[in-house]
């Protein structure tokens, strides 16, 4: 560890390697710029300026303008809000559903586990993107639809993860001790099994966030996700795809925003996994 990395380590004592710290800082920048979009954006969000169509990056429009004259930087800043909201909502719904079912399955065992895990297997048997696409086609396109169709394919992974961790926690002596004290099963799950099962889930959440953003971008790209005039990175890429050879900035900058955010989430997730698993720790 070099001295120039030490301020980062002081800021992020739980993140042991510089790469992960870099991911955390990058993510913080993305989140902050998205949150502060109304104050940071140089132009109003939806203000088409037909006379300023497809202007290349310049002092007036740092990242250029799109095909109806809207500032690309402004839409990327606001688009971050939509993409991050989708990621948080999908992971929230998936984690709450998946972890609840998984912890119950892992702790209860027997037929309860069998029923929950077989239902989970049914969902896992479908290719995720195909299932999302099929549902998105049936439902009305929009942000809520994106959240729903991705969450439907995402929760089973959390169920599997939480079930395996909870099954292991359920055999620990402190859980046996609680049983022997007559603590009711729901309380044992809430007090002991759930909190001790969360660490790998948190790591998985940070690893999955990038994947959710990419999937939502893919759905928007296919016209099944966010719709105009919503600012969303995947939608921006989809709308700019035909302009790539002539007006590269329309599609490149939102694409880079997706790439950077997915990269930041993944790097942070890897770092968390290493920090919390001594067998994978960076030496």
């Amino acid at each position, binding site marked *: 560890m070099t001295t120039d990395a030490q301020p980062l380590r002081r800021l992020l004592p739980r993140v042991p390697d510089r790469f992960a710290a870099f991911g955390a800082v990058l993510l913080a920048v993305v989140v902050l710029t998205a949150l502060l979009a109304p104050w940071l954006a140089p132009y109003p969000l939806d203000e088409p300026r037909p006379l300023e169509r497809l202007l290349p990056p310049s002092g007036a429009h740092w990242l250029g303008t799109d095909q109806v004259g809207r500032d690309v930087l402004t839409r990327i800043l606001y688009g971050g809000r939509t993409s991050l909201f989708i990621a948080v909502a999908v992971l929230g719904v998936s984690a709450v559903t998946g972890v609840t079912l998984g912890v119950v399955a892992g702790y209860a065992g027997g037929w309860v586990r069998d029923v929950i895990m077989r239902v989970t297997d049914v969902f896992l048997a479908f290719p995720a993107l195909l299932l999302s696409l099929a549902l998105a086609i049936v439902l009305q396109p929009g942000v809520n639809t994106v959240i729903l169709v991705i969450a439907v394919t995402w929760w089973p992974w959390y169920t599997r993860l939480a079930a395996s961790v909870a099954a292991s926690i359920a055999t620990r002596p*402190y859980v046996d001790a609680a049983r*022997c004290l007559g603590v009711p099963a729901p309380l044992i799950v809430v007090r002991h099994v759930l909190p001790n099962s969360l660490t790998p889930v948190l790591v998985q959440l940070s690893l999955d966030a990038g994947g959710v953003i990419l999937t939502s971008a893919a759905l928007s790209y296919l016209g099944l996700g966010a719709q105009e005039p919503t600012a969303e990175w995947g939608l921006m890429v989809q709308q700019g795809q035909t302009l790539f050879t002539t007006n590269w900035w329309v599609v490149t900058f939102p694409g880079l925003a997706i790439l950077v955010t997915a990269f930041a989430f993944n790097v942070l997730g890897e770092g968390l996994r290493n920090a919390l698993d001594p067998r994978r720790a960076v030496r």
Partner: protein
Amino acid sequence: MTSTGALLRAERVTLGYGRRPVVHDVSLDIAEGGVGLIGESGSGKTTLARAFLGLLSPMSGTIRYGDRPLHKADMKAFRRDVQPVFQAEALDPRMRVGRSVAEALPRAARSRVGELLEQVGLDPALADRRPHQLSGGQRQRVVIARALAVGPRLLILDEPTSALDVTVQARILDLLASLETERLLITHNLAVVRRLCRTSHVLFAGRVVESGPTSELLSNPAHPYTRALRDAVPRLGGDPPEPKGATEAVPAATGCAFRLRCPLAAPVCERPPEPRDLAGRRVACHRAEDVLSS
């Protein structure tokens, strides 16, 4: 070995996981004066302890609590009467130790946490610490305090000192010996069982091979496995213990389970030995007389 008035009793109990039995046809009482379950890893001690704690149902046979089968007993009373003391690692790593102890108490009595910690020789101020902030000995005392919180009549002690260094072991043993509860001690440490238990049962491959007064069993064993356990204890200043027989051999599937490791094994050992009374103890060995006289 059965007697009347035992708080807990196993009657021809067979225990297992899934369909695989690991404890076979065991009968024993938790009698006064402390009972020891001795045996190597995998002999079924902890499985038997889990059955006595009501955490595992027998495949056959009955665990009795007083005069009723455990599965028909008043479980509230049972949980008050019988408590486990697991190893020092039996504390939730995320929970402050005071909260772990308080879990055993009704809401109105949670102010007793400090008093319970004091009872086991800990500073009540440690209640705010998490387990990793305590030493192994302190954690073991917290585990004992939690078990004592409900005022049990019987403690089931599963290797309570095996993870501790010798001096800390001694202090924990002093503490356990000073408690007025009955105890079932599961251990492979013969010195511990000698200190805390009047009666002992030696388990090998899920079967009780010898039962009787602890002092008799350890000073003059009648089963070659008990003798092997005793002789394996290193003595300070003495020669290292010499292994007798094949110490790593697996239990035999037929006949006497110990015969593949037994230095006295004979053709007769290919038949399963019936437990019998001999020299003040109960032993399951065709060659018990030879063991006693050798």
